[in-house]
């Protein structure tokens, strides 16, 4: 019964989305205020229906209703309750439902936003209508190809259980956060298109910026969380693998970052309007591409995609429809602006330059991600593009990017270049000095790249602090978001540089009572015991870690076997503080009480996640502290 109600709610949402779309078109002659009321109502109805549909699915999960195919495949009676809830988005169908809910939720926040002036009524109506079209297509997609409420007969006695990899707190909240970021980019997309249809409205940039920052926050958090999860759960102790699924989230992040900056110029100076519009279109298209890559099965094999093409083809068509349609609209309706006259090193040009670097970074990632797929499709040749490609080419946009990020802090709107170089030279020299001292004297010299990375990290952090040091207390809060975001970036660069240059990682054998040296640390295997968890059995090793003969900690790496699936899972043992991570993963029993182990020492690894955390703080300050400030300033 409950699943059927869920089904009905999906159809209600479909109808609401259709009406939401149609009302925005000039098909009916209704007056504007009535239109506004109706479109807001339908946006709300759509969102509520999908929310209730998720509740229906959750209810069936909690009651172990295995007559629903999706639940039979992704849950069983032994699954702990929190993971039964997380299992709602544990696989394809449910995660699309969540995707859809978040899309409609962002739509509601836009519909009831007070950011729109009276002149911008049409901007709001058009953007909600466009969002209605996006919702419409995705609800259709869910109902036709990925219905989570589908029943099976006969009903199995027990479900297959949730993938053990996903039974982890960080991964349980990772998809909702990442999806919120992905679909949040639909809002600037809709606003950008609506602005093309309402030539007299100029305030789209300011409104779009709020939602772009919003989804940028979620993307940043989601990516960082995913990286952290991969680090401790996949058992190899890496924090970024250049896996297509990771790349799929990195590309929209890079373009969303560019969009946030471009919208600043559009909002404050009225420049780069077309560029911002284009970036908004690209950002959302990349979100859709990410969904396609992750959800179509195309990554498993181009050919498996061809043999079960329904889902992938549907998303591919949607990408074509939205990207193609949006670009067409852009070509037809874009506002012709006066030819740009930019000072070479003014703030505007530096922002533009950095946006170009961010976009080229996204482009390079995209080439590496899609090229193997295209090649396999064209001539069946199988290749893969390894991490060395990404690690190398990403430097080309990123090094100049970091240089200009710092330089931009000295620049002024429409400012002259000569003053800029003069003003920045002292800080630049200081950064180079600190970088050299640290890399040559404090740490041991590694490669030129390490030194460059250290200099750039110091440069980014110092220049990030400047707006706080120089500004009067009144404008301190105003400068805080930018400062925090840039300091966070610098800290992340510092972490990446030091970890990749000075980290030690290797596989080795350890017998009971034996120890191995990793850098300045000693890892000693004491013993290995059996343990029984709620739905798994495990081998647990006890490894003591010594530094200069002082015991600094004990870790318990595990090898788990879950009841439902035969393969074992590695749970790493990690002893961490802000300055270094010591990591042990249990390998195999090699016989004779000797085990293989994966050991590593990673200095400053935590900074790679601390950096994004500080960036997120910056964004939160912008959204929640600055808003009331600017409103009181206006009144």
């Amino acid at each position, binding site marked *: 019964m409950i699943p059927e109600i869920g089904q009905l709610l999906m159809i209600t949402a479909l109808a609401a989305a259709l009406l939401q779309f149609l009302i925005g078109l000039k098909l009916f002659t209704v007056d504007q205020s009535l239109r506004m009321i109706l479109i807001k109502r339908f946006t709300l109805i759509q969102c509520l229906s999908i929310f209730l549909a998720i509740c229906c699915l959750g209810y069936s999960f909690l009651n172990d209703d295995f007559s629903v195919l999706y639940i039979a495949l992704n849950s069983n009676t032994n699954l702990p309750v929190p993971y039964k809830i997380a299992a709602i988005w544990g696989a394809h169908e449910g995660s699309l439902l969540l995707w859809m809910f978040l899309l409609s939720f962002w739509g509601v926040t836009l519909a009831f936003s007070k950011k729109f002036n009276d002149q911008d009524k049409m901007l709001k109506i058009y953007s909600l209508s466009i969002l209605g079209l996006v919702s419409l297509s995705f609800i259709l997609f869910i109902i036709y190809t990925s219905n989570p409420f589908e029943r099976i007969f006969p009903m199995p006695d027990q479900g297959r259980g949730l*993938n*053990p*990899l996903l039974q982890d707190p960080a991964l349980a909240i990772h998809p909702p956060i990442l999806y919120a970021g992905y679909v949040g980019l639909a809002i600037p997309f809709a606003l950008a298109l609506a602005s093309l249809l309402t030539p007299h409205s100029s305030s789209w940039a300011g409104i779009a910026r709020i939602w772009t920052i919003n989804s940028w926050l979620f993307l940043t958090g989601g990516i960082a969380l995913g990286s952290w999860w991969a680090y401790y759960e996949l*058992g190899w102790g890496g924090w970024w693998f250049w896996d297509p699924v990771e790349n799929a989230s990195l590309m929209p992040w890079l373009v969303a970052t560019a969009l946030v900056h471009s919208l600043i110029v559009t909002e404050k100076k009225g420049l780069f309007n077309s560029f911002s519009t284009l970036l908004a279109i690209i950002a959302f298209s990349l979100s859709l591409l990410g969904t396609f890559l992750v959800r179509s099965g195309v*990554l*498993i*094999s*181009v*050919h*498996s995609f061809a043999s079960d093409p329904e889902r992938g083809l549907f998303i591919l068509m949607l990408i074509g429809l939205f990207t193609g349609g949006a670009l067409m609209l852009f070509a037809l309706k874009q506002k012709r602006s006066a030819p740009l006259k930019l000072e070479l090193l003014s703030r505007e040009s530096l922002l533009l330059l950095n946006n170009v670097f961010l976009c080229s970074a996204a482009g*390079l990632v995209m*080439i*590496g991600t899609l*090229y193997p797929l295209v090649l*396999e499709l064209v001539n069946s*040749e*199988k*290749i*893969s*593009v*390894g991490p*060395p*490609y990404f690690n*190398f*080419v990403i430097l*080309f946009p990123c090094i100049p990017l970091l240089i200009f990020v710092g330089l931009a802090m000295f620049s002024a709107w429409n400012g002259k270049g000569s003053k800029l170089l003069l003003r920045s030279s002292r800080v630049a020299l200081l950064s180079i000095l600190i970088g050299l001292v640290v890399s040559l004297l404090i740490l041991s010299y590694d490669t030129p790249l390490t030194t460059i990375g250290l200099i750039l990290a110091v440069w980014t952090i110092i220049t990030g602090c400047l707006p706080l040091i120089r500004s009067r207390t009144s404008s301190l809060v105003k400068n805080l978001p930018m400062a925090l975001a840039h300091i966070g970036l610098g800290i992340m660069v510092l972490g990446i540089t030091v970890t990749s240059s000075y980290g030690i990682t290797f*596989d*080795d*054998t350890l*017998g009971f009572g034996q120890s191995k040296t990793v850098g300045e640390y000693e890892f000693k295997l004491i013993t290995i015991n059996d343990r029984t968890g709620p739905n798994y059995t495990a081998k647990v090793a006890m490894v003591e870690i010594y530094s200069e003969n002082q015991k600094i900690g004990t870790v318990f790496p595990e090898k788990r076997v879950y009841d439902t*699936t035969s*393969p*074992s*899972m*590695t749970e790493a043992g990690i002893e961490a503080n802000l300055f270094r991570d010591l990591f042990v*993963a249990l*390998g*195999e029993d*090699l*016989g*004779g009480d*000797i085990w*293989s*182990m*994966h050991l590593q020492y990673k200095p400053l690894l935590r900074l790679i996640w601390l950096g994004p955390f500080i960036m997120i703080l910056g964004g939160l300050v912008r959204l929640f502290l600055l808003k009331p400030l600017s409103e009181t300033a206006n009144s």
Partner: protein
Amino acid sequence: MLPRHRRFLGICLVLLTVGLASFFILKSFQDNLLYYLTPSEVIAGKAPEDREFRIGGLVVTGSFFRQTGSLTSQFVLTDGSASIEVSYKGILPDLFREGQGIIARGKFNSANLFIASEVLAKHDENYMPPEIHAMETSLE
């Protein structure tokens, strides 16, 4: 300097940067492409020399060998018609089994033994490297 000259110089500079960057990127792309071959293709001499590539095949049942307490293991990969002996020093993935499809990345040493620097197996029931998936479906 006339504005015209300045613009010309600017364009040249941009073209030079873009050209240089694309050169390095393309080169890196070429260097880091990993070819995927089956044991038959390797026997037929398609393997690149002096650089790593990937071989995919099933681990022959009974071929797995490791000395007690040693990190180095040896096994034979086959695609049904040809087979290749592989040596790997390190931890094998959780899902490594005899009779299972795996991918080994590495190159041949002078004794014609394939020295793997990485071994990939199925991630879990649902996700696996594309080549393994293709291989298993073709052999079923």
